[in-house]
């Protein structure tokens, strides 16, 4: 569950592309709107979800993001959804469609819908992180009205995450080198390890706080970058709004299919 290449996705966010240059607020809003739209499709919807793939694919191309790390993470995090979704074909066996001799039950249709929704929502979330650095997202939240205490918390957590992960990594390595036959991995030793880490954490926090105070920290973190949305941001927001209305309310797949059938 916790990969040590935690920074990989985040490192992509420091690239440069039309997508990277958008304001973080725009990207967060657009991602959230897309997720809500996808999730609002009914339980047995499959055809309507297909054109929605346009959004993550476009974002991937515009942002210059390699597809492999995205796909890897989508696959890796899918276990829970697959487990719960796979119960649908078992529980809902009413037949919905028939193709000749093959009949498809409603359970399979809803399972397919769940899988599609999962891939869509997860991919846009990962693309958001890959094109917007986490401090950028935190600052965007601050500008939108999230309390400063919480925004500071997000930024500090991000900053010290790597420091403490490295420290824990060293501790785990040291313990594993000294552990024979699973001896060092019991509850008691782990509790002591965690306790030591906890005490070091508190001491570290005190040192950091004193260092910050002596450099004039007063509770507000300075932020870089203009606070105004540019033309590109407004264009992106309005385009997305239109696209989402189109995707949700019109049967694009059916329309394209009918036109093709008419032509031939």
């Amino acid at each position, binding site marked *: 569950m916790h990969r040590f290449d935690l920074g990989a996705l985040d490192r992509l966010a420091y690239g440069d592309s039309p997508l990277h240059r958008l304001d973080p607020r725009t990207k967060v809003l657009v991602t959230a709107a897309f997720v809500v739209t996808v999730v609002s499709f009914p339980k047995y919807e499959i055809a309507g979800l297909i054109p929605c793939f346009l959004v993550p694919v476009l974002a991937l191309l515009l942002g210059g993001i390699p597809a492999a790390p995205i796909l890897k993470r989508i696959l890796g995090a899918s276990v829970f959804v697959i487990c719960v979704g796979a119960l649908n074909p078992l529980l809902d066996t009413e037949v919905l469609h028939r193709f000749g001799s093959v009949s498809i039950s409603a359970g399979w249709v809803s399972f397919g819908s769940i899988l599609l929704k*999962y891939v869509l929502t997860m991919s846009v979330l990962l693309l958001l992180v890959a094109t917007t650095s986490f401090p950028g997202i935190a600052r965007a939240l601050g500008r939108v009205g999230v309390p400063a205490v919480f925004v500071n918390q997000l930024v500090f*957590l991000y900053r010290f995450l790597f420091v403490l992960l490295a420290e824990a990594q060293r501790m785990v390595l040291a313990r594993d080198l000294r552990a024979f036959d699973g001896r060092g991995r019991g509850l008691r030793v782990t509790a002591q390890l965690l306790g030591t880490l906890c005490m070091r954490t508190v001491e570290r926090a005190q040192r950091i706080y004193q260092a910050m105070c002596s450099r004039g920290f007063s509770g507000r973190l300075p932020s870089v970058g203009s606070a105004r949305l540019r033309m590109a941001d407004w264009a992106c927001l309005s385009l997305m709004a239109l696209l989402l209305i189109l995707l949700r309310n019109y049967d694009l797949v059916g329309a394209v299919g009918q036109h093709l059938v008419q032509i031939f």
Partner: protein
Amino acid sequence: MHMSDALLSPAVGGAMWAGTLGTIAYCSKKVRTEADDQVPPLMGVTGAFVFAAQMINFTIPGTGSSGHLAGGMLLAILLGPHAAFLVMASVLIIQALLFADGGLLALGCNIWNLGMYACFIAYPLIYAPLVRRHRTPGRILLASLASAIVALQLGAFSVVLETVVSGRSDISLGLFALLMQPIHLAIGAVEGVITAGVVNYVRKLQPEALVHTGMTRRVPGGRLKTLTLAFLFLALVTGGVFSWFASANPDGLEWALQRITGAAEIPEHTTGIGATLRALQAKLAILPDYTFKPDAPPKAEASRESLAWPHVDVGTTVAGMVGVAMMITLMFVVGVGIRALRKRAARG
């Protein structure tokens, strides 16, 4: 492994986000005004500590499988409930964004499920009272166990409720609960033991590290708060569970009408403003007749007596809880409104 968006409906996700955001705002205000100066920087680093702690696996005795600390209870003990909720929220946001653990819409649910019960129910109602008078290692172990188990049971049940109410999965409430609750009972027990181990170790070696909890400063009106929480809990349980025991027989009014007119209900309006209002009510009613399934055929009078009792039904539970929540919100709004009016009268 947290909830994913694909199993949620926008209504459930949105509602949980609203609750989470409100709690974040409340906790931020509390931390800003009441916590001592050292807490905000400590929050950032303890959040990172939670991640680091989750990397340190241990083997669970008796099973051989490995587990790790989740950290909700430990955070509440170290920082106090309000700061702990904020730290938990930030940890889950990072997990969602950087680890792809849980979806964006489900993030609201995840923060609520993992933060609310540990920080605002298990810690103040179970851990703190048990540990207040006698801070012995044995007491701390008991308190940790009890609060971790309760927090995880409530969290797991919330996942079940959110999934079932969203309606994207066909799994029934009973089956899902049967799968989730026992597993989280075991997880909660292990979490409680590990948390107690860490707290006792730190108390032995560096007790001043545990000084920042909100419970060291007497919260004014403490007993009133406990009472209010207890009543809220009772109200929710009554609305959620005892509503199953509500009788299916006709109530007093319907019984009287039946004796007089021969029908249990007066015929509905079909024209005019009555019909318009009836249509509006049908559209607005999210839980018609205190249950789900608005498209099920209306129950015949004869079958009413034959309904199984207690009538265990998710819809009734949700209706009960929604009813309680709305009543409390309404009372709160009225109370705030009255206070505002009185202030204005006093000023003018």
